[in-house]
């Protein structure tokens, strides 16, 4: 080694320069005051769930026509909930904050927990907003520490989709009953369908496409769970039993786990599909035959809800917050939630939507959409904390389920997952509760 004094000094200088530059970055200039004034236009950051950009624009136009003094603007927040979260995080670092954001089931808690979004209860009271007609379970999903941090917007629930022709071939009921339990699915439905059609009975998306969400309810029906409140349950024998069930089904070719399950079903490569209600609109056009939808297997509750709500950043002025809360009320009111959900396949978030004749007629004409709405009242409960409240929980569980599907030992995988999420919880959440 031949280090001259000169080169050593240069290296030191280089290191110092790098250090200095790195240090500059990341600090920002942080002038995000606690009371940001806006530019007079309400900014609604949305990722247009369910390809709803045009519908959202239509709702905003209606708002602008009714409220010319406080116009709103639709901003592209990203291609999915995660990107919108990123963009919002960037704005939190000192940029201009939006007035209303779309916050998904896995991002809203983190924002509420870190004080980035504001509780809505006082605003509802001061602005006289009636929240009694929201579907109670959907509204309750956004509660933390006794306060509401969001309002349901684009809410979905998993559904079972079945090709009518395949069910007939297998001699199974086509009246919308579906398998009553996962055991019935494994013993009767799946083998019959497989025998009659040669195709997997059911297809579902993989772990990077929310298998952890679709299959969450199945864990409950086995008596297991991801967690009970903050108490992680991955190593519970019942949870492991459910994981093993999934593994066996995949190994026997009865369930296929693919990246894009809606397309897999749409082109007829499987008899059934476990997917979000959000796919209803698209499948109506692309499916290769008539299909019906059924509840997820019980015992009830056999599944959960998901999708996104609307939240208000904490760092904007009270004046802006007041307008924002009115805007949220408007965009999710009975009439608009009907417009929005009929176009996308999401579920109406107001209970009185069903009383509107137009919606009643729609449900009569679209029994598949009606299944979703009825299931919401009968067959769902809120998600496990481990998936939605622990930062990165959903992704971690999805990754673990992928390993199980690939044939790794269920107990080993779940034990590792339990340790990983427990560590995250102990580090990030427990000290701040």
């Amino acid at each position: 080694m031949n280090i001259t004094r000169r080169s050593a000094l240069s290296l030191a200088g280089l290191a110092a320069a790098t250090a200095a530059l790195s240090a500059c970055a990341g600090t920002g200039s942080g002038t995000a005051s606690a009371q940001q004034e806006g530019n007079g236009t309400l900014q609604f950051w949305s990722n247009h769930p369910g390809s709803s950009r045009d519908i959202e624009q239509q709702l905003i136009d209606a708002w602008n026509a009714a409220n010319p003094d406080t116009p709103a603007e639709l901003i592209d927040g990203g291609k999915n909930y995660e990107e919108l979260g990123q963009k919002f995080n960037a704005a939190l670092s000192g940029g201009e904050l939006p007035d209303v954001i779309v916050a998904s089931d896995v991002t809203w808690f983190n924002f509420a927990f870190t004080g980035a979004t504001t509780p809505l209860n006082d605003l509802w009271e001061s602005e006289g907003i009636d929240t009694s007609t929201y579907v109670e379970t959907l509204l309750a999903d956004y509660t933390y520490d006794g306060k509401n941090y969001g309002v349901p917007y684009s809410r979905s629930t998993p559904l079972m989709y079945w090709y009518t022709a395949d069910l007939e071939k297998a001699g199974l009921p086509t009246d919308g009953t579906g398998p009553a339990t996962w055991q019935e699915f494994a013993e009767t439905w799946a083998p019959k369908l497989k025998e009659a059609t040669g195709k997997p009975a059911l297809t579902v998306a993989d772990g990077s496409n929310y298998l952890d969400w679709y299959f969450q309810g199945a864990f409950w029906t086995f008596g297991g769970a991801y967690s009970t409140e903050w108490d992680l349950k991955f190593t519970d024998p019942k949870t492991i039993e459910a994981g093993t069930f999934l593994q066996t089904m995949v190994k026997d070719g009865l369930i296929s786990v693919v990246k894009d399950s809606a397309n897999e079903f749409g082109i007829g490569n499987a008899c059934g599909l476990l997917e979000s209600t959000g796919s209803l609109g698209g499948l109506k056009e692309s499916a290769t035959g008539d299909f019906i939808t059924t509840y997820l297997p019980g015992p009830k509750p056999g599944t959960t809800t998901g999708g996104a709500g609307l939240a208000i950043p904490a760092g904007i002025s009270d004046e802006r917050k007041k307008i924002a809360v009115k805007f949220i009320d408007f965009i999710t009111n009975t009439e608009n939630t009907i417009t929005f959900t009929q176009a996308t396949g999401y579920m109406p978030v107001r209970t009185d939507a069903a009383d509107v004749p137009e919606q009643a007629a729609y449900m009569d004409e679209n029994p598949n959409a009606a299944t979703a709405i009825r299931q919401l009242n009968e067959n769902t409960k809120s998600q496990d904390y481990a998936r939605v409240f622990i930062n990165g929980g959903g992704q971690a569980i999805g990754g673990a389920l992928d390993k199980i599907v690939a044939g790794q030992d269920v107990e080993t995988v779940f034990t590792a997952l339990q340790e990983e999420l427990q560590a995250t919880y102990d580090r990030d959440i427990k000290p701040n509760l």
Partner: protein
Amino acid sequence: MTVDTAHARSLPAAKPGSALAQQQLQDASATRARRAASAPGTKTTGKILGYAGMILAGLVIAVPIYFVVITSLKLRPEIYSDPITWIPQILAPENYTYVWQTLDFSQYFVNSVIITVTLTLVEVSLGVLSAYAFAFYRFPGSNLLFYLVLGTLMVPNEITIISNYALVAQLGWRDTFTGIIVPLAGVAFGTFLMRNHFLSLPTEIIEAARLDGTGFFRTLFKVVLPMSWPTLMAFILITAVTEWNQYLWPFLISDTGRVAPLQIGLTMLQDNEGLTNWGPVMAGTLLATIPMIVLFLFLQRSMIKGLTAGAVKG
């Protein structure tokens, strides 16, 4: 698969292309050398091996691109058909019309062109000028300054994004071209690349030019740059492709379709929850790649011309 990865898959069009071009070049010269040196018997074996290698390399590059092309022309059921079809049974050019109509494609395209052209011009000018200064002009602290520039090369973009965002937002540049372009314009890579190339040029020529009394810019444009075409073209190409494919920064800064580039527009073709029809996504991706392929073909000629136009003769 997201648009990004789909795009990344189709993107290597330019890069492998250059590898292919190089390989062809090498193969050609290698065959020539062999032809001169070896007996006729070994000649054919070498030729066959050479062609086999070329075909293999070509296939590795061409098959994914071919797949993007045919997928963009297929209807949805056929895209997912099993077994896969290699020739679309029903041509579906409506994928392209769909992209054009739903996307406001021309707006995104124009935005992309504005951003890429401006950034390439600025980055290349800055890179060449600063490299020229660092390579040929001695001034106090020049080394320190160069190391400082190099230092910025070692800070990953991702680290500076948040602070840049805060600054740009405070300046009121969100949702403007200025906001997208200015923070991306300062890149040390060009300075580093061009300086090192300039230093490899024979000093005799520069000295001769100086003796002849050429000034600062005259030396740069008449002497130094003509000997640097291949490097400069490569630099321009890399810069243009990088900026054309920028996603994260324009995404953070643009709020509406007004200033957003194509790469962001493409995400509008995907559905958040539910079904994505890949035909239009592939069609959009392909349309977004074409300008870069054209640019490559265009610059490639200058690159090869530059390679053969030596300034110093044996």
